């Protein structure tokens, strides 16, 4: 039971809102110590685990060019483009992005989205601008809610699209695991059984996005009423 101390540290740390990076580091070291290893061994194992995971943050490499473009007006341009499309609302725009993200992920094109490359410079400013065009000045609260929805659309489109592609990591992991346990399953069979969930994900989240416009309108009317 002692190795579970790491989970305990994470759960208490996160709920007490201690800095997550400090909490996770403490949990990793405590888990190592609880497995009856010497401090030197634990620090070495921790160092190795961190170094082995260096490919996790590669998306940050996009920041120099994204930052450069932002200072040249990329976000402002994204807003101008959306303000020319009169049918655009926040809900419809994010619904279209959800569909596009899910379809391209299903074709294995997962690198076409992402938070630093697509959501921050393009999708989030467009979603904000669409709401501004319809509803006028937005409060910070509304602005933040729209941005969070832009990030969520990217995640949900990715998660419930990629498993339809037969060569994606999760499908390969499932296949490898089942083979070790004596079951041979074709990747295509696994991919087909990801389709019902993909449809449900689009219907459920799409319906929420369709309702988002109305909810934003109410929220803005309320805050404008309060301001007057």
């Amino acid at each position, binding site marked *: *039971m002692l190795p579970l101390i790491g989970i305990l540290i994470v759960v208490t740390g996160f709920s007490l809102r201690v800095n997550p990076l400090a909490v996770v580091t403490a949990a*990793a070291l405590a888990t190592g110590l609880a497995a009856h290893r010497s401090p030197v061994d634990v620090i070495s194992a*921790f160092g190795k685990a961190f170094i082995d995971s260096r490919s996790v943050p*590669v998306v940050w490499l996009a920041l120099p060019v994204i930052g450069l473009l932002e200072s040249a007006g990329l976000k402002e341009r994204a807003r101008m483009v959306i303000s020319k499309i009169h049918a655009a609302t926040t809900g419809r725009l994010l619904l279209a992005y959800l569909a596009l993200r899910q379809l391209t992920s299903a074709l294995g094109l997962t690198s076409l989205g992402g938070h630093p490359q697509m959501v921050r410079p393009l999708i989030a400013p467009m979603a904000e601008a669409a709401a501004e065009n319809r509803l006028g000045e937005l409060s910070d609260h509304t602005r933040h809610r729209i941005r969070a929805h832009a990030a969520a659309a990217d995640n*949900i489109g990715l998660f419930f699209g990629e498993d339809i592609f037969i060569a994606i990591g999760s499908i390969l992991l499932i296949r490898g695991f089942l083979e070790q346990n004596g079951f041979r399953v074709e990747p295509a069979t696994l991919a087909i*059984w990801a389709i019902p969930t993909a449809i449900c994900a689009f219907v459920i989240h799409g319906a929420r996005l369709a309702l988002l416009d109305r909810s934003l309108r109410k929220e803005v009317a309320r805050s404008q009423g309060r301001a007057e």
Partner: protein
Amino acid sequence: MITLEFVNVLMGLMMAGVAIVNLRDRTSRKRYNNAAFWGLYAVTFLAGSYLPNFVNGLLVIVMVLVMAIGKLGGAPPESSTRAVREASARRWGNRLFIPALTIPTVTLLGTLFLKRVSLNGTPLVDPKQVTLISLGLSTVIALIVGLVMLRPPLRAPMVEARRLMDAVSWAAVLPQMLAALGAMFALAGVGPIVAGIIERWIPLHTALSVVATYTVGMALFTMIMGNAFAAFPVMTAGIGLPLIVHQYGGNVAVMAAVGMLSGFCGTLMTPMAANFNIVPAALLELPNENAVIKVQIPTGLMLLAANTLIMYVFVFR
């Protein structure tokens, strides 16, 4: 052969640049702390492959101590005013999108074609790491396109990268730290212990309760581990295979496919999946770091219920 080390060097150079810009910024009150934090991070990328693991571990611990005790400074103000940016946006028009869209385009082309290129019989890039290397290459090419097009001062990309990195701050390192935590969990055998607890405490008398335990267990365990890939082998070996497949005669493919997707529902609802949930909150400058999770919870719960139903209906056919 181009290996993952190429990406590590790029990351190291960028982090070193962020550290230097911080160090030279006299207006920042925390400039030494930020420079130490990003500088140490740069060392793990540039020298991490050659240093002993123990030294790497110490470097990371010092990094976290600088952040926890010394605290980091936030992002500097934007380098240009909104009016200037709007004028620039009008001048450049939609050409501004070209460098941004270069990243996904080149990544995609690289993933498709670089695998086949070889020089004197050895492949040009490590075939196992084609996607990551393509992504690294694409950011370099996009930056060159941007520099040629906009002709900014040469230090501009690093100054802007520093502005964005300091906006994201420690959250930029969190996904990697969570991956390291996952490795430590695996080392200490945390997975099997948790699966044992679930098996002991949950009633597993009917087919529906077995299916629901598996799907909800996948989601919960993914929320703890931050990653469905870590939860899948443990939950499937503990509940999926012995109960759903062997005892109740369920279909392996349906169980595994929908089981993994139930885990993804958990990913939507946990701060432990920092890459998807905490990082975008920092990147979009949201004051509440759980804002993205809050938006995703209703979809996550409804979809988990849908998954349970899908599995129950199709797995025993």
